[in-house]
């Protein structure tokens, strides 16, 4: 149907080995991404969004493995690449930004040196040229170039995250995966980082997969979003559709439980119950125990994804009965 899709994930499943048996953390998720588009992968902690990101990046821990599915990126399925091909793909085509609070920068190396190393090793640049590129990157992310000679512990959380962004784009990859990249940052610093990400997206036509639990942040940065619950995509579509008139009961209740700056002090209703643990994945719809509309029909098999508007689909048997 499309001539040459830029990036799509089809029925990707990931499972973890705990002790002797395997538990599925991600169940046949599918979504696609156009060039230059920002796609959001949202959900509460433990819903499998980070595992999915690590699977796409082929950086899963040694006790996790990809059971099935394809990840199509620029003309090939990267799940079939071997280590050498992967090492070629990493950072040149696809880079990753980790959580702000983690120490993603090597504490005993100067920050500029850590970016220089990527340029000289992966791009074969000579030192002088590479150093100029580092200083150019630093001005781009809004830090004075001479600070490239400082060590990571001399930077604040926000500054460290900017350096991570500079490092991620230094080889001009076409896709960036940002996993909770502004968690643990203050709202003002978070806004600065978001503006920076939006600029980079426009300036370099950079496509991004943005993983976060904060729905307001996702709505601010992303064009389209997929809501995940217990390892499955329960609803996906353009951000305005999904957040303004959500179809899936879970997404509806989550948005209603979100204290927002605009609406008054109406009583917010929490979602009763607790998300299922990795080991308690049930046959039918995993939201059934907490769903007000659910009945026996939902417990037999996993609800298929139904398109309710162009590009906007939700996986629930009770779509028609809901007040859209």
């Amino acid at each position: 149907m499309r001539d040459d899709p830029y990036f799509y994930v089809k029925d990707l499943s990931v499972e973890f080995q705990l002790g002797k048996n395997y538990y599925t953390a991600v169940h046949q998720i599918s979504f696609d991404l156009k060039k230059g588009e920002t796609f959001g992968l949202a959900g509460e902690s433990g819903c499998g969004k980070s595992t999915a990101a690590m699977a796409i990046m082929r950086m899963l821990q040694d006790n996790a493995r990809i059971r099935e599915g394809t990840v199509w990126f620029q003309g090939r399925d990267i799940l079939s690449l071997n280590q050498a091909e992967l090492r070629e793909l990493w950072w040149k085509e696809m880079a990753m930004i980790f959580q702000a609070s983690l120490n993603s920068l090597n504490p005993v190396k100067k920050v500029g040196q850590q970016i220089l190393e990527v340029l000289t090793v992966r791009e074969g640049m000579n030192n002088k040229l590479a150093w100029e590129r580092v200083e150019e990157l630093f001005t781009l992310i809004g830090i004075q170039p001479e600070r490239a000679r400082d060590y990571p512990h001399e930077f604040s959380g926000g500054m460290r995250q900017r350096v991570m962004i500079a490092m991620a784009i230094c080889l001009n990859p076409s896709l960036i995966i940002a996993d909770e990249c502004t968690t643990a940052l203050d709202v003002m610093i978070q806004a600065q980082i978001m503006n920076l990400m939006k600029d980079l997206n426009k300036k370099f036509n950079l496509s991004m997969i943005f993983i976060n639990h904060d729905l307001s942040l996702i709505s601010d940065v992303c064009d389209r979003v997929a809501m995940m619950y217990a390892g499955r995509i329960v609803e996906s579509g353009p951000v305005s559709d999904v957040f303004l008139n959500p179809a899936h009961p879970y997404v509806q209740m989550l948005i209603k439980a979100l204290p927002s700056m605009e609406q008054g002090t109406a009583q917010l209703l929490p979602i009763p119950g607790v998300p299922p643990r990795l080991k308690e994945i049930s046959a039918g719809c995993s939201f059934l125990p907490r769903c007000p509309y659910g009945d026996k029909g939902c417990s037999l098999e996993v609800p298929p994804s139904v398109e309710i508007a162009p590009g906007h689909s939700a996986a629930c048997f009770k779509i028609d009965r809901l007040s859209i």
Partner: protein
Amino acid sequence: MKSKNYFVKRIGYSLLTLWMILTLNFFLFRMLPGDPIRLLFSDPRVPIETLDKLKAQYGLDGSLLQQYGLYLANVAKGELGTSFVYNTPVSEILAERLVNTVILLLPATILSILMGCSLGIIAALKNGRTADFICLSLSQLLWATPVFWLGLLFMLFAGNLLPLAGMETAGASFDSWWARAMDIGRHMAMPMITLSLVMLGQYAIIMRNSLIDVLTEDYMLVAKAKGFSRTRQLFSHALPNAALPVMTLAAMNLGLLIGGAIQTETVFTWPGVGRLVFDALISRDYPVLQGAFLVISVCALIANLMADLLYKQIDPRLEL
């Protein structure tokens, strides 16, 4: 400017520790009823003139505080008293013996650090698999082996391979200093191997634990994501971080190393400070014991200080 502050502070602490060593050394030999100095007077073996020299040297009639003052003055002058057995100034004996110990210790330390760290790296990289278990058990086994016993074992089973006693073939004359060095080298082989094998275990364990810690850090994940080869990940990112704790613990282990030296030198009759301490213990030659203990402690203190300051230069995060 900041690192100067750290420098001054560490020197300050070391001087304080030095003073404590001197005080401990002084009181160590005047403790409890069995005060060795007084015991001597009833010991027929000791000649009269040594007794008089002793009285003058330690000012035994003065109060404890006067003796302490006198003792500190003597140490400052490098005057450590005279040995009962050799009847020569302790400082002379110690100077010569110290050189021999350093000749033995230096290569042993380097050897054990190199072998230990590589064993530790292999264990960490193969974490969880049999290679890790083997390296770990081997290191623990070596670390649990008493140095003197390993020496005895070598003597028993590898008796004829290498010389087992002394530092040089007695009475041999050598045409060049190189030949003499080779001879010392052959004599040194056995005690050095014994010592480094045992110390190796400790370094292997420290390096393994430190490297496993570092390999689970996030910047290692980033290094992998940058498409670096495994060797670059290890040498450019993992080892620089893993080496830091190894250095600190290595500095703290210097004391144990000297303990090991005493055992090796005793078993292989290597004429170092260790053997001197052993002989002095047998013959209860207290001035030598006191001097040896002082020199050993001060050397350990200096080595610790140097390792501490070197650590500051390498680890940028330290700002005091």
